[in-house]
């Protein structure tokens, strides 16, 4: 039953988006059984889809759904005659969880009427002892309520493969003893970084999906933004969560301008800036400012600040490249990577001129760290072209063309090559 896709009633669709994760999280906390939690949450929504259109949505939809789901769960456990055993298991889990000093212990029910245990669920889904692909799938299933079929379509694998992946991950959580809790303070920073990595991957999967691919795949961006917003709400002191949310919102603001009528990617400097979503940019700026205020500068906040520089420039020419170059420098100091170095070299070239940029790129090329990566010769070619060193530029474009993977990028490089070498 594809509930998340099949809800026509707006109240129901809204409740699904807002309440699914809460209900599943609270049920797992109470009963310690993932499949039971998902099945009973699903049944509660199915009942809502029968009742609400005729009777109207209840005043507190979350509380209604949670009560139905919890009663179903208790009913099933009774019928399975394992009620006592399960209760015992739940009691012993609760005992081992006391006094670990973690945040979010015993969160009281808020106005929605559902105790918010989503932070436990987030940390459990994103536990490092699970494979990355399993973390992503579990997060989408348990927190966002995507069906196995939808997750399979989003990650371009057969449904059976995805089902197996989910079963295996849930089995490991139970039998290897992955705890259902927010990690204690000593491990919190490291584990929170792991959660952010899952959300970032989710966003990038959606962002890199082409227009021709299924909607569910592009919808991953929205899911990532939604989940990051939840995380920001649950961990307001975590600067990098706000940094990541700002980064996602800046990128999403440009989505309409990223692809042209032919479906080709449009480079940042060529994008029609009137298509950028100003409201999303404003929102991103607010989260970025909040992250800055928290002071704990991390890679996501820096990347968001770079995206913010681009977003605030009225034209490509007005871009504050000097600030961008400085931010890339900071980013390279924090998380050294040759791709970051290449981006820094491009920013330096824009700020100080192609000669300075070329010097940094040549240095990078001599390390061999980016051998085989077409963007390095492509960027070098661009520097050489602007310096008027056309034969060298042509050679570098040819080098890049030999490495490029996708057709639109090949077309772009070939066009540039004809500019510097008309015989081509």
């Amino acid at each position: 039953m594809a509930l998340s896709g099949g809800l026509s009633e707006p109240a129901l669709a809204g409740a699904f988006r807002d309440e699914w994760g809460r209900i599943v999280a609270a049920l797992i906390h109470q009963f310690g059984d993932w499949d039971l939690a998902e099945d009973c949450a699903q049944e509660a929504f199915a009942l809502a889809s029968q009742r609400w259109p005729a009777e109207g949505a209840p005043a507190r939809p979350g509380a209604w759904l949670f009560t139905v789901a919890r009663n179903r769960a208790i009913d099933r456990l009774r019928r399975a005659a394992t009620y006592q055993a399960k209760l015992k298991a739940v009691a012993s889990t609760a005992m081992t969880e006391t006094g670990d000093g973690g945040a979010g212990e015993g969160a009281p029910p808020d106005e929605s009427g559902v105790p918010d245990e989503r932070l436990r669920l987030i940390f459990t889904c994103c536990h490092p002892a699970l494979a990355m692909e399993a973390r992503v799938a579990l997060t989408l299933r348990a927190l966002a309520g995507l069906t196995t079929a939808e997750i399979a379509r989003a990650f371009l694998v057969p449904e059976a493969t995805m089902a197996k992946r989910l079963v295996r991950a849930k089995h490991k959580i139970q039998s290897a003893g992955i705890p259902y809790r927010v990690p204690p303070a000593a491990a919190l920073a490291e584990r929170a970084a792991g959660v952010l990595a899952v959300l970032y991957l989710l966003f990038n999967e959606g962002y890199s999906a082409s227009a021709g691919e299924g909607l569910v795949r592009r919808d991953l961006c929205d899911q990532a933004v939604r989940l990051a917003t939840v995380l920001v709400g649950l961990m307001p002191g975590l600067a990098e969560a706000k940094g990541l949310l700002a980064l996602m919102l800046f990128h999403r603001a440009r989505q309409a301008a990223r692809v042209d009528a032919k479906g080709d990617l449009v480079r940042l400097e060529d994008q029609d800036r009137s298509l950028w979503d100003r409201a999303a940019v404003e929102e991103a700026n607010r989260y970025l400012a909040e992250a800055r205020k928290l002071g704990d500068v991390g890679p996501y906040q820096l990347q968001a600040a770079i995206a913010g520089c681009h977003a605030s420039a009225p034209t490509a020419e007005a871009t504050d490249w000097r600030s961008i170059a400085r931010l890339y420098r900071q980013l390279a100091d924090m998380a050294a990577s040759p791709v970051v170095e290449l981006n820094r070299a491009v920013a330096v070239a824009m700020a100080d001129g192609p000669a300075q940029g070329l010097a940094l790129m040549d240095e990078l090329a001599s390390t061999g760290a980016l051998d085989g990566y077409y963007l390095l010769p492509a960027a070098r070619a661009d520097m050489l072209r602007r310096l008027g060193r056309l034969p060298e530029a042509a050679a570098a474009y040819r080098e890049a063309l030999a490495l490029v993977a996708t057709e639109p990028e090949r077309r772009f490089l070939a066009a540039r090559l004809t500019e510097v070498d008309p015989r081509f």
Partner: protein
Amino acid sequence: MRPRPPWLGTEGVAPVQYLLVHVVDGELAAAKPWDEAAKASLASWVDQTISRGANLHGSRLGPESDATTVKVRRGELVVTDGPFAETKEQVAGYDLLECSDLEEAVEWASRHPTAQIGAIEVRQLYNDQPSAGLPEPAPGKRRYMMLVCTDPSVDPDELEPVAPVEPWVEEMDGRGTRRFGSQLAEPALARSVRVRDGHALVTDGPFAETKEQVAGFDILDCADLDEAIEVAQKHPMARHGILEVRPFWPFQED
């Protein structure tokens, strides 16, 4: 301490502890299902080894997909899903035997039903711990097998020498977390036992030619996997090798 087992005689040979690592070949196991006969054969093996005073403890382990590896590189904790090495035959359980010599341990191994659907690696313990069984974990604790493995991709010149393990053992024994454990004799001294068509095939060396090799093991009782990861992370070999943490099989019979 357990009295000296009568089958060792009264003098001369001191008993030696051996770890029998049961490994199962997925294909062979699928072709030769775990039927009533196999269950009976296993039960009879366990009864015999216990009645002869040879079997100290043993258990089936959770599947390879429930394994987690832990290492520390450049000061950072690295946690990964899966076993320490991808091998055709997968570690499925263990028994700890006390025998007069390697020959006897190999003989017991060849009678174990797992030898027919995989292999049994026999490794001597470097251990002077008393012969004793292993009590059940305390309520609220889960039991894990931690395999201490070498990692040849670590360049020993880049690192400090491996710190002595004794402070870790002392701490974890004191916490009630470590219930048993030992270094193992080097892999070259291992024997691997397989039974095919009724014939025992005994080869020198470990069950698989992997870069990484098991160098020791510890049995841990922890509240959850996070505690097991923390305990593994503190082991001196976390910086030089790989620690695989795997839950014991959770059911009495299956």
